[in-house]
């Protein structure tokens, strides 16, 4: 190996906050003796002919900003001993760099730019040096490196100068392993599946064994892997297709009181709701990569949400980053331009003591910081506004954080085609293929344990994204779509090319030559090329006479592409490596040959709670109500998320009509975001001032795992109701509303977990039918369990996210949640019931004899009436009641509007028992509405028989008054924004 140049860049004006954040992270990890951590950026350059002058030129022109940085560099010999001691004995160093093959845009850009400067084709590596001050021994330093400075899933470190890893070409042996299945006994099949981490069960292995016997040859490694990916829980949703025997058990005895056969949970609940829904604007549900609905006659909207939980647990930045990138590709995969992203995140408690972090897991603070940076990085860089989301905290998410990513797209009505022809060329566009992301789909179908992050397959299952590549690919696809250059399109997600081409060729069959696939570096085995989940790749089926036109678009946008094969019409998936067979499977085996699972589900009914005693009620009546409200406002699940939301770009493209935050100080929590996609409905030059469209759409979500801990059925109906009432609150039409379901659950092979899943499915069905709404897309992530070394299992709280997209007929007729004017009236819409089960109040106080929020009465009628009132301009502000009920909603409206709100409980129908029940009950189907006195009668008429109570007013004095609550807006803000007094 040649000598290389080592360049160290130091900021002369370092960002104080970043330095402080590093020190804080060290202290969080228990290393309180760390006094200071300074940072230097490292670059390594090598080429046999590279000269001193060229290195200096690269530094000046590309690497160093002379106003705020300085640098030193020197030649080093790879064989020489590297410096281990720093000049200053009080300072110790840690150096970190990426593993070989991890996406490193910086290194790539230096290489490209050097070529542009006419310099030799240099090899480039990057790294970081941390200079640590404080009394740390070697063990402490290792801990600091592992827990704060380096993530060993994608990086490695040294406590001395690090040796750069340059990508070197390796030769591939082209080896295709032959695996003999015939003659193996059942237990040998199971062992084989386990050893190769196929996550296939015995029945599935037996199908492959029978196939092998039938064709009279062993199967190849690529064939086994392809079957494992195709049939993985992640790709095939085995549990939702399974035959389930569902039993309900009596509270204490466990006696079976009800039994039924659920013939496919998806078909009998989610899909059934969609099929029974009367709406004619549903254009595609559960068929494509995303659900598609009508928008304005000329354009359609697509919506999809995904999870990326396991990768985010191990490498929070890369996991969430590629989660966003993946769901955006789902949208590009239905030929739509991505125009909004959403993220819903669940983390462990941020103040968890360092010694309570389960073995092999990262601290929840580190998980949160990385996940948020990863989400922001992808959306911000692609220029897609992030306009809706939620963040939840619960100890059950410590080892298994949840990262839900959603994306909305817009496309012309007939833009999306799925009609591959025999003879179509298969073009792979975008990112190069590497060893990254191998077996991601099966990886996500396994439980996490203390060794997962150390297992060799973890580092290849997790990747870091490159949003700029995806942005360029998007531009090419949009132009190719408009020019009708392709007959079919799909993205490369889980399972990589095997899954993308496998799905696209499901009916026709295809032949693929793997040596044509462009690689990041050579040396991959054939099965690795076929299965790699390398990011930012799309596959197009293009008729041979249009390949040239696609190539021209790719050249314009700097997008790499390869022609890797064609559609054959023979119904066989044939994959070759340099002409040698790698895969030769009938499409029917992969898509229809899967043996259906049969599973047992059990749900133990809750005990009837005892009637509350007078003493208990009395105790609740004597709680300091001010303290209760301030405590709830400061609860991490309720408190302001402004600091996080502001790291996402929610303004790009100028279409965000209702922003994530609203009110006098731009900080009140909006119920839903409203987007006007006018910029994508017209072309440049046709967008004269008079031609602006006013149609828009709203996005919201509903999620409450605390209800799920009580009853997953109630969690499901509440999530649907919350998503619906959020979009209705801003002015969207409840009759033009589509839902997405995303289930995150524990291990479905355990009957209690599956019992809850069946309950939740039934809740989804009942709620969707109550509103006459369809689900248009959904996804499940199961096996979110942590298995400790002693075998003890910790599942996540079963968590259902419902996302809603709804049409806003005219964006000028939308409302925000901040109260607008003193003297206006406050109405409570909906019925308040004794529903404090799973409530935020119940997390702090023992609430006797209560229920979990269930379906409201007249849900759809009330939502329709409210929508009518909003469209008539009768509503000044509207906010839904969710966590913390009436009291929290009123507080948020007041603090967002900078005005007071006074509510008289006597004017609403209250719940028997304690006063605070009515204030903090979380009954569904409720909104607080601000109406000007002039419009009071019209509003009451518009509400058309729904339960409505005029219960208060907006006051100039900025104070919230309900019962004995008497708090200034300043006090509310302090609690809610986490500011110290």
């Amino acid at each position, binding site marked *: 190996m040649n000598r290389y140049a080592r360049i160290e860049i130091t900021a002369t004006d370092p960002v104080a906050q970043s330095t402080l954040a590093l020190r804080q992270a060290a202290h969080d990890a228990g290393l309180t003796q760390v006094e200071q951590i300074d940072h230097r950026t490292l670059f390594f350059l090598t080429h046999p002919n590279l000269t001193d002058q060229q290195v200096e030129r690269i530094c000046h022109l590309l690497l160093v900003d002379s106003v705020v940085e300085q640098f030193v560099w020197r030649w080093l010999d790879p064989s020489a001993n590297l410096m281990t001691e720093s000049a200053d004995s009080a300072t110790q160093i840690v150096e970190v760099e990426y593993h070989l093959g991890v996406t490193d845009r910086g290194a790539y850009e230096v290489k490209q730019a050097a070529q542009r400067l006419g310099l030799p084709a240099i090899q480039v590596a990057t790294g970081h040096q941390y200079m640590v001050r404080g009394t740390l021994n070697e063990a402490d330093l290792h801990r600091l490196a592992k827990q704060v400075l380096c993530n060993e899933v994608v990086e490695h470190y040294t406590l001395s100068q690090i040796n750069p890893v340059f990508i070197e070409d390796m030769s591939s042996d082209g080896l295709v392993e032959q695996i003999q299945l015939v003659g193996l006994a059942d237990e040998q099949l199971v062992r084989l599946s386990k050893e190769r981490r196929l996550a296939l069960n015995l029945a599935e292995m037996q199908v492959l064994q029978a196939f092998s016997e039938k064709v009279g040859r062993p199967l190849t490694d690529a064939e086994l892997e392809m079957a494992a990916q195709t049939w993985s829980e992640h790709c095939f949703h085995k549990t939702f297709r399974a035959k389930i025997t569902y039993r309900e058990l009596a509270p204490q005895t466990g006696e079976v009181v009800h039994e039924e056969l659920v013939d496919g949970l998806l078909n009998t609940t989610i899909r059934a709701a969609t099929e029974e829904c009367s709406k004619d604007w549903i254009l595609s549900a559960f068929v494509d990569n995303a659900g598609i609905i009508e928008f304005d006659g000329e354009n359609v909207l697509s919506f999809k949400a995904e999870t990326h939980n396991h990768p985010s647990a191990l490498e929070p930045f890369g996991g969430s980053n590629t989660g966003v990138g993946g769901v955006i590709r789902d949208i590009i995969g239905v030929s739509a331009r991505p125009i909004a992203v959403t993220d819903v995140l669940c983390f462990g408690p941020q103040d968890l003591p360092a010694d309570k972090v389960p073995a092999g897991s990262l601290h929840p603070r580190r998980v949160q910081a990385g996940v948020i940076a990863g989400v922001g990085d992808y959306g911000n860089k692609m220029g897609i506004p992030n306009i809706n989301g939620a963040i939840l905290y619960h100890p059950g998410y410590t080892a298994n954080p949840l990262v839900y990513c959603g994306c909305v797209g817009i496309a012309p009505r007939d833009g999306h085609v799925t009609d591959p022809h025999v003879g179509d060329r298969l073009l792979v566009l975008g990112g190069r293929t590497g060893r990254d992301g191998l077996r991601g789909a099966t990886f996500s179908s396994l439980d996490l344990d203390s060794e997962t992050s150390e297992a060799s397959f973890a580092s290849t299952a997790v990747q870091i994204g490159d949003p700029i590549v995806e942005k360029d690919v998007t531009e090419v696809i949009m132009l190719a779509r408009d020019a009708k250059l392709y007959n079919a399109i799909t993205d490369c997600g889980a399972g990589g090319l095997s899954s993308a081409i496998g799905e696209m060729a499901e009916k026709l069959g295809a032949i693929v030559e793997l040596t044509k696939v462009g690689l990041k570096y050579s040396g991959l085995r054939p099965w690795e090329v076929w299965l790699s989940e390398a990011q930012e790749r799309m596959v197009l089926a293009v008729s041979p006479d249009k390949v040239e036109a696609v190539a021209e678009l790719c050249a314009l946008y700097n997008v790499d592409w390869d022609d890797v094969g064609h559609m054959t019409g023979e119904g066989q998936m044939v994959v070759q490596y340099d002409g040698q067979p790698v895969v030769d499977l009938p499409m029917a085996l992969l898509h229809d040959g899967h043996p259906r699972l049969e599973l047992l589900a059990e749900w133990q009914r809750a005990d009837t709670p005892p009637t509350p005693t007078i003493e208990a009620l009395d105790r609740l009546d004597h709680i300091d109500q001010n303290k209760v409200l301030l405590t709830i406002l400061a609860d991490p699940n309720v408190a302001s998320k402004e600091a996080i939301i*502001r790291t996402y770009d929610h303004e790009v493209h100028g279409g965000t009509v209702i922003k994530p935050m609203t009110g006098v100080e731009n900080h009140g929590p909006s119920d839903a975001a409203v987007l006007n996609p006018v910029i994508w409905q017209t072309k440049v030059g046709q967008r004269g001032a008079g031609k602006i469209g006013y149609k828009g759409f709203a996005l919201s979500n509903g999620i409450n795992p605390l209800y799920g801990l009580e009853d997953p059925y109630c969690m499901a109906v509440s999530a649907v109701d919350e998503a619906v009432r959020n979009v209705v609150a801003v002015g969207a039409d409840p009759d033009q509303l589509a839902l997405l379901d995303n289930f995150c659950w524990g291990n479905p092979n355990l009957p209690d977990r599956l019992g809850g899943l069946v309950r939740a499915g039934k809740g989804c069905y009942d709620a969707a039918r109550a509103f006459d709404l369809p689900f248009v897309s959904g996804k499940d992530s199961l096996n979110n369990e942590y298995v400790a070394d002693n075998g003890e299992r910790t599942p996540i709280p079963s968590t259902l996210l419902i996302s809603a997209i709804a049409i806003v007929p005219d964006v000028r007729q939308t409302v925000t949640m901040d109260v607008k004017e003193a003297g206006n009236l406050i109405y409570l819409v909906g019925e308040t019931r004794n529903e404090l089960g799973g409530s935020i109040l119940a997390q702090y106080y023992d609430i006797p004899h209560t229920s979990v929020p269930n379906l409201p009465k007249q849900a759809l009628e009330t939502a329709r009436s409210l929508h009518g009132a909003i469209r008539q301009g009768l509503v000044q502000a509207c906010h839904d009641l969710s966590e913390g009920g009436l009291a929290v909603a009123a507080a948020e409206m007041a603090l967002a509007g900078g005005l007071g709100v006074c509510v008289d409980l006597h004017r609403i129908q209250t719940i028997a028992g304690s006063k605070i029940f009515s204030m903090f009950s979380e009954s569904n189907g409720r909104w607080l509405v601000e109406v000007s006195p002039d419009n009071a009668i019209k509003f009451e008429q518009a509400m058309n028989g729904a339960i409505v109570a005029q219960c208060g007013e907006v006051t100039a004095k900025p104070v919230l008054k309900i019962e004995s609550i008497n708090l200034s807006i300043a006090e509310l803000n302090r609690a809610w924004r986490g500011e110290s007094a």
Partner: protein
Amino acid sequence: MKPAVLILHASGTNRDHEAAWACELAGGLPEIVHINQLRGALHSHRLADYQMLVVAGGFSYGDALGAGRRLALDLTLDVQDDLARFVEQKKPILGICNGFQALVKAGLLPNLVDLTGEENRIATLTHNQHGHFECRWVTLLPNPNSPCVFTRELTEPIYCPVAHGEGRFVRSEGLLEEQITLSYKGADYPTNPNGSSDNIAAVCNTNGTIMGLMPHPEDHIVSWQHPRWTRGESGRKGLPMFEAGIRYAAEVG
């Protein structure tokens, strides 16, 4: 005749469409042009055919070498002569956010820097004081003493969002006060969202024809973009700057 405006697109540019929209509403004739269409084998457009240039916002090439740096290299290597003539003819150039960063790194703002010779940079844009990307609305005060063609006629503050991670303007010796065209309304975070020295949000070259700014006036050109439009606050506070630029472009072009 409406002045033709070239909206420059490179890998990672993402605020080109609203920049085009703003120029359109301001009376211009915008066209989004990929930098590959101005150079090399795919050369199909000439900068000389336009009266105004907008280097739009985004994350060109991922900003992997520091914001705008790689795009700056393209500008200096591939369109240097066309750009020099454009500047010489005093045609207006506007760099927004990433475009501002690129113009600074390319040595066009705030002063001309010869990148091949001795470095004489007097300013740069670097990481925000808070160390991360931030999106929030800011108020920008125009400098009445600046000759800048985009801001010299502004009578009201601009209200628009910022959305960047590397927007802290750092000046050293040599920047003239009249080169400061827009300033954040106050020195404290978040009024000054990134810690820029002297609250500088935008600067121009000495004759006022090239301006760069970090915030996004192109995202406040219709009334419902104002974050408090539901409270009756009026909007379009970003448009006058584009109108001024287009008017000037029509005169000079």
